[in-house]
């Protein structure tokens, strides 16, 4: 009986531990565009473009830590990358990543956003956003 009680108590504790991650994942699965708003600004310069990407977080669960990277990828190989790191990202916070990409690299590769985060510091996860096709 005591063993069963311990198992049930442990299950409730695990549910409590995973609740922030479940909430975050539910928000992301149902309304991905509302959880992260991504806006970008591309400024051409002489032989390159400067890409500024701003990621705004609108989810309810604090993300501890949060690390976002823009990677210029060609056949799974990262040619260039730029990152932004925050210890904690709360609802309404934004991060901006800036990256200078030469034209020749831009023509033969695709940008990809990689976000490493952990809802309430419990479950580390990586989100990769890339163009379909």
């Amino acid at each position: 009986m005591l063993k069963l009680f311990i198992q049930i108590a442990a299950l409730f504790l695990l549910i409590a531990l995973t609740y922030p991650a479940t909430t975050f994942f539910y928000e992301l699965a149902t309304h991905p565009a509302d959880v992260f708003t991504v806006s970008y600004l591309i400024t051409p310069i002489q032989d390159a473009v400067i890409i500024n990407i701003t990621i705004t977080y609108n989810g309810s669960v604090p993300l501890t830590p949060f690390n976002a990277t823009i990677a210029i990828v060609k056949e799974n190989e990262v040619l260039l990358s730029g990152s932004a790191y925050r210890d904690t990202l709360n609802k309404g916070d934004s991060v901006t990543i800036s990256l200078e990409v030469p034209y020749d690299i831009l023509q033969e590769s695709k940008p990809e956003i990689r976000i490493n985060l952990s809802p309430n510091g419990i479950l580390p996860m990586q989100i990769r956003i890339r163009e379909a096709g």
Partner: protein
Amino acid sequence: MKSHSYSIWSISSKIIGGIIHGCITWLIYTYILPKIFTAFDFHGLAGARLTSTAWLGLLAFFIALGVAESIMRKHPISLILTAFTGFIGFSILLYILNYGQIRTEIEYEGYIIGITIDLRLILTAAFLLITLPVILLTAYEYFKKRTEEM
């Protein structure tokens, strides 16, 4: 005569207790814990590849272990069976959850959003909170009984 009927009742209750314990262990390791850790559908989970025969086989296996453990409660082998049940249950959980690395992909407005979750930290917590205490508690109960009997 009276002691004979008591003995049958005692064995039946141990068997029923073992069946219930086996079912609960099966439910915890193959259904409840994977559901807690993967609240949403994930592609390619090893657990999804298990057939219904495999699930029933696992249920029968846990029931058999539960009954054996319940009948041999006073024997030292019950400790080994408890530990074995815990480790097998935890190993099945690891297998179902791809050894702690699960991923899914959502296609949204021309973009592919890939999500990879590292469950190793929470699986360690599950081992420390569920598997280990049950083994330690069984060992404690066994040695306490042995000391009282001496």
